[in-house]
């Protein structure tokens, strides 16, 4: 039986006439990784901010984080949590170590503990060589790792990451994933937002797919993949073939999804799709297993919203 450390019930939040979050409920088990997936403007960041009192929720909803209510006990929650905001916000005027040093004061670490912790974290995030570098000399990936190190200063029980790897190269992304898995193994509960499906798939035990403030799908990634979408997809990107195909009658068990010239045919039986490809005389198609991105696009729609 695992412990529930976060319990969120019927939370709503609006900014003027915009409903950022609508009636969201979820709970997070200790030492698990919980993900929020959704297009830009889905309400992911707002949801995260409400957890540590940076944004206030209204109405009848309740939140319980380690037994604390963010409306009244934000300090306790913040003390137990580390936050990695969407944008890196390091102090450019200070060097790497000094950036962490200043934050050690916010948590009231003793000088000895702080020095030790900073050395450990720089080592953990593979930044030891940069300990006295200026922030301006750091690459995007290094800055991100430093922000994560900063969030870990007080050995948080909960780590909140808002799009931790957006804009980073694959090497750095995999390094960060690896570190997050290590932290989870050590007992840290992780909450993250992302719009990278592989990231959600690689890290999350549970996830919520959000769109326009609402939870659309919820569950472990593998189960979503199993329950919510056919097993295979045939992508046809050549306009003429796509047009011809969408005019013709499709075999049973095939579902079509078209956006402009991009046609996708979904089926559980790969042979049915393979047969369709034989009439193409072209290799402008791609037959593959479906992934979380297909689930996501099916759930949120493939067209852009006004908020994106």
């Amino acid at each position, binding site marked *: 039986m695992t412990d*529930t450390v976060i319990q969120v019930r019927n939370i709503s939040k609006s900014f003027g006439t915009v409903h950022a979050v609508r009636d969201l409920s979820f709970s997070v088990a200790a030492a698990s990784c919980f993900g929020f997936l959704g297009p830009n403007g889905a309400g992911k960041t707002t949801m995260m901010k409400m957890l540590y009192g940076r944004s*206030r929720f209204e109405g009848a909803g309740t939140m319980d984080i*380690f037994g604390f209510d963010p409306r009244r006990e934000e300090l306790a929650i*913040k003390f137990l949590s580390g936050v990695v*905001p969407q944008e890196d*916000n390091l102090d450019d005027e200070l060097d790497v170590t*000094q950036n962490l040093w200043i934050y050690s*004061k916010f948590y*009231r670490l003793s000088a000895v503990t702080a020095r030790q912790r900073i050395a450990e974290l720089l080592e953990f995030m593979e930044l030891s060589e940069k300990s006295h570098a200026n922030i301006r000399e750091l690459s995007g990936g290094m800055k991100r790792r430093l922000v994560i190190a900063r969030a870990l200063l007080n050995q948080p029980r909960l780590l909140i990451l808002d799009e931790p790897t957006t804009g980073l190269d694959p090497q750095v992304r995999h390094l960060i994933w690896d570190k997050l898995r290590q932290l989870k193994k050590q007992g840290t509960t992780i909450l993250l937002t992302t719009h990278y499906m592989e990231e959600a798939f690689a890290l999350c035990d549970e996830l919520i797919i959000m769109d326009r403030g609402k939870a659309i799908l919820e569950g472990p990634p593998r189960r979503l993949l199993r329950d919510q979408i056919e097993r295979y997809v045939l992508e046809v990107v050549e306009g003429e073939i796509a047009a011809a195909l969408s005019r013709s009658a499709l075999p049973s068990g095939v579902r079509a999804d078209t956006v402009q010239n991009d046609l996708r045919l979904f089926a559980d039986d790969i042979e049915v799709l393979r047969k369709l490809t034989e009439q193409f005389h072209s290799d402008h198609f791609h037959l593959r297993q479906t992934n979380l991105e297909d689930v996501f696009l099916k759930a949120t729609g493939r067209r852009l919203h006004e908020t994106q």
Partner: protein
Amino acid sequence: MRPSESVPYPPLAWRLYSVWYRHMRVYTRNLFSNGLPPFLEPLIFLAGVGLGLGQFIGTMDGVPYIEFLGVGLLVTAGMWTASFECTYGTFIRMEFEKVYDGMLAAPITARDLIVGELIWAGTKGIFFTFAVLVVFLILALFGYRVIPLPQALLTPLFGFLVGLMFGTMSMFVTSFVKVINHFNFYFTGLLSPMFFFSGVVFPLSQLPRSLQWVAELVPLTHPTRLVRGLCSGRYDWILLADLAYILAFIAVMGLLAVRRLQKRMIR
């Protein structure tokens, strides 16, 4: 789910200190470029206005003009630094550098952050007043008497109050500002006129009677009169009223600034 142990987050005084410490560390990191101008500015001002113009004026309000102006500059140093810190400084940290996004994720409330920053503005008021004082003391060593001694040695303490006054007012203004250029209105429209019409450059008694009451409402008038009173040794009951005005101003403006800026940070 409630943890059996209480969470040992830092107490209020420490939280304010940690915010202050952050600003102090960032400021002193570039000590040369940040710390030199406050020493040069009064020199330039004294040379340009005090020496040049002073030769034509002779005495003002019973003291040599350079001394009249010198005492005034001990007051305005704190005003300018706190005003810049809590307008452009605060705005850039809030909107451009996103410094607060990180700080507000640490165990610090928005109110802690704002009050800590105001205390920092007061500290800068002390430092900048002290810088002006040091310049005048050096001039005194060379025989140029700019300020009355030893009374003027106490002025940096008033720099703290001046820093708080203009820090709170500037933060209140910042809470309305959406575009950084709008601070121009505040500096050109309010602070610059105040510099000239609050008894810093010439005594209030020179103003037309109908305008004198306006000067009495303006914040800079009160620390200026207080510091002049202290420096000249002419103690008067009105100085107590000035002190009361200063404290009330800080309290009211501080409350307004915290309220409004807090709403902007926690939405």
